[in-house]
């Protein structure tokens, strides 16, 4: 038993990795996907090389343990998005 929101798309409630056409990658819980972009909740982001870590290093840690959130709510514009996939698929 739990809460369901079937009208918000198949990724609603799933923790996703959003890769972009720039150095930044986002991880957060997908709320909605629209033609304008994707809305993430409890999200974090990482830029290539930030804190001495590559995006691959960042994703490797996140795939095992998740992320410490930096944003309660963030919108990633569709024009920047290259891929959206479930974090669980990386584990």
């Amino acid at each position, binding site marked *: *038993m*739990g*809460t*369901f929101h079937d009208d918000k798309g198949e990724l*609603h*409630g*799933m*923790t996703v990795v959003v890769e972009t056409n720039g150095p930044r990658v986002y991880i957060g819980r997908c709320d909605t996907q629209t033609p304008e972009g994707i809305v993430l909740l409890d999200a974090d982001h990482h830029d290539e090389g930030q804190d001495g870590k590559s995006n691959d290093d960042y994703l490797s840690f996140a795939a095992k*343990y*998740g*992320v*410490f*959130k930096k944003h309660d709510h963030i919108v990633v514009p569709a024009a920047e998005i290259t891929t959206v996939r*479930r*974090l*669980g698929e990386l*584990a």
Partner: protein
Amino acid sequence: MPYDPALVAPMRQEMVDMGVQELTSADEVESFLANADGTTLVFINSVCGCAAGSARPGLRIALGNDHKPDRVGTVFAGQHVEATARVREAFAQFPPSSPSAVLFKAGEPVFYLPRHMIEGRDGPSVAFELVTAFDQFCN
């Protein structure tokens, strides 16, 4: 603001029915974790249908395993806020998420099943992850 108690009551009861000790205050968590002998599992419960709806059945299946934690407790994220915060202090090196589960051995966290490893999976799949950890760390 905590959830409506009526909303979460069935999800809490599901845990109690499988013999898990409910921890509703920081003091209760403190006492529960103070016993560092052997292994202790804490399940962070949640209303989330995307994950908790399979996490609870997964835990129930896993607790039927030959090897399992000596103690199993649960807090409800978004309902028992202070209790949840106190549990998370005990494994602060891992990012918080709910639902999730953390296994302690001799007081140290040795296994963490975060929310994203539960999302979209069914109960037996979640149980497999837990049983694998139980077989590794529990008597």
